[in-house]
């Protein structure tokens, strides 16, 4: 295996990177992103991915989705007509600091991932007591 991933400083080599080393190629899934009451909502088309085969990772300000796909047909099947390649999905996003990282939620439904990125609440201005002596 000749894929030694250069490790940026203070970023441990993730399991995800190790997993990706198993893949020959990956596909960029199409996405929709829109603003809603609750924050930003992201939909990604990941046909063939279930909640068990999806890795969703937030590291620092980066959101990475990796969906592993297994071919639905037996190995010995001969391909007669091809409009798409079967393979895993990968896409990464840079998040702004206005996302409430602790409350990101995600769900899968018929091969579509929905991620809700809530807007971080601006903290109330806090009065700082000044001690006098």
């Amino acid at each position, binding site marked *: 295996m000749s894929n030694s991933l250069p490790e940026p400083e203070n970023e441990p080599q993730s399991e995800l990177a190790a997993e990706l080393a198993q893949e020959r190629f990956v596909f960029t899934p199409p996405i929709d992103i829109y603003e809603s009451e609750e924050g930003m909502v992201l939909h990604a088309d990941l046909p063939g991915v279930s909640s068990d085969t999806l890795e969703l990772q937030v590291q620092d300000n980066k959101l990475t989705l990796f969906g592993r796909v297994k071919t*639905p047909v037996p190995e010995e099947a001969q391909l007669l007509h091809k409009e798409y390649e079967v393979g895993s999905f990968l896409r990464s996003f*840079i998040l702004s600091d206005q996302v409430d990282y602790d409350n990101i939620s995600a769900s899968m439904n018929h*091969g579509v991932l929905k991620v809700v990125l809530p807007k971080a609440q601006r903290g109330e201005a806090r009065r700082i007591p000044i001690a006098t002596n």
Partner: protein
Amino acid sequence: MAFFRWGHPWSPLGDLEREVDRFLRGMNLSIHGIRPGRQFPAINIYELEHEFLLTAEIPGTDPEELELTVDAGLLSLKGDRNDVKEVPDDKFRRQERFRGNWQRTVSLPDRILEEELHAEFNNGVLLIHLPKAQQPEPRKIRIVDQQQSPSDTDESAQQTPEPPKPKPRNIEVHKEEG
């Protein structure tokens, strides 16, 4: 650079790709981008010994709302996808996924048992089984020796009757829990 910056347009995709590239540098991995203008849904057809298989990527479709019909060698798939209907256009920051009505019609290979088609739907992937009809045994054609009295009828002259045309019918899609 900030990707989810409120009230601002998104930064170009290039930043993202660079980010991913950095992440994947040194791996034997090629990244296939989104192919725009691809037919929806994309279909593959495979052959096995006893059946053909048709697979289609139809993410975000409820199997109950998927319409499959087969008639005289044509298989039709029909549906509608709009899970973001309620979102006003000006709220979108990015829109790459297919929306709206779609329909695909596929000519089936010869010698399919249309009555025995069955389909599964799993995580947005449709899989249709198309069982092959049994190949008839090759028939021996007897050669009648003219010098003997021809007592036997010539089998090759017998026409096989045309099978009656089946009516179009709907195929039930079984959802696999998974």
